[in-house]
């Protein structure tokens, strides 16, 4: 009886351990950025793939080496263009005139204000 209990427990621990491992490996690989236009989620971008994304006319995002930045914008102040690249949840990209907000998924401990 006792031995069987240990076997069951052992198997249980193994299954739980493996599933945690699986989940952590799985979640590591897909770092992505959410693009909102006026509060509406319009695109989810995989940061592991180098590519360009036209969000609207004259507004283009580009992903290079795991980082995302604004490539083209028609906005008046061009502040979003100057924000540079990001791969961190603490540094969203914001284009106020176009109402576009790009947020990288992840745990937030750092916040950028300005």
């Amino acid at each position, binding site marked *: 009886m006792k031995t069987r*209990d240990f076997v*069951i*427990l052992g198997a*249980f621990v193994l299954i*739980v351990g493996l599933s945690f491992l699986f989940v952590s490996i799985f979640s590591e690989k897909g770092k992505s950025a*959410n693009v*909102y236009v*006026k*509060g*509406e*989620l319009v695109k989810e971008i995989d940061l592991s793939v180098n590519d360009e994304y036209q969000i609207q006319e004259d507004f283009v995002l580009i992903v290079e080496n795991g980082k995302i930045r604004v490539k083209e914008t028609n906005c*008046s*102040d061009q*502040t979003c263009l*100057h*924000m*540079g*690249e990001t791969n961190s949840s*603490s540094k*969203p990209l*914001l284009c*106020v*005139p176009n*109402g*576009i*907000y790009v*947020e990288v998924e992840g*745990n*937030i*401990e*750092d*916040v*950028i*204000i*300005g």
Partner: protein
Amino acid sequence: MKRVLALFFFLCLFGCEKKELNSTIYAYGTNISINLYEGEKDDLNKVKEIFYHYYYLADYENERDLVNVCTLNKIAFNEEVVVSEDFFNMISDGIECYSLTNGNCNIAIGAASYKWHEMIKDKDNNIDILQNETDNVSIDDVILNREKLSIKFNNKFLKIDLGAIAKGYALREVIDYLEEKKIEKYLINAGTSSIGVGRNKENGDYNIHIIDPTDVGKTFKSFKASKKCVSTSGDYQDYFEYEGEKYHHILNKSLNVSHIYKSVTVIGDDALKVDALSTGLFSVDIDEARQMLEKTGYSAIFYLDDKTVVEL
């Protein structure tokens, strides 16, 4: 045996991460990202509802079937307009921001501040014409009657614009709600210029980094904070340049733009006051700024036009 297994299941459940409640909404001309690490879905919905509620009340252009800013600006000259209690409090607290900032955050110059926003879009630098819009309106021309919950304007040029403070007002209401529900782990990021931080997911402080106004891809100052509101006003959002001069969006008392600072960041408890001060401090010299801050006990970080940084 059963007990051991039950304990195991319990531990597993306990170990599972609780689902986070995140949402991004568009209001007050910006994207507001709401992150709650405690609470229920209903709390997230309530937070969104509060943001939208005050956004609609502060709407300058549309009435939205409400009695709001747009309604007052249409009909309140020489007429007592009865409003909801929420709206009355919003206006009355908005008026208090005037004395808090020595008149540098003035909700009564709406005609000028609204026009200036339109002019910035068109890159029209003829800022002197703003004088004609307000024709000596005074904040005292807004007549409040708390018993009747009515508001009246004594000057026909008076238009209210809550643009500088509506977001801060709503954020304060949101934080009051979260405190009431004992939700302490949260981050509300209202377009990166106003934030309300509780504690982070691990129950610790957040690291806050202020954007460098001369290179917005970088930050120039970092500090830790929890259970605070932080607001920044800067000359690098919502501006245009004409013949080397920067025309930003923050109007001073003389209906012009000041070039004392490139950004001002205020840290304090009350989101409304923090928001109003970041606007108000932007237009006054450092001595007057110190006096204004002393009244509240809040701290501020100034990035001056000559790139020096002053902390008060």
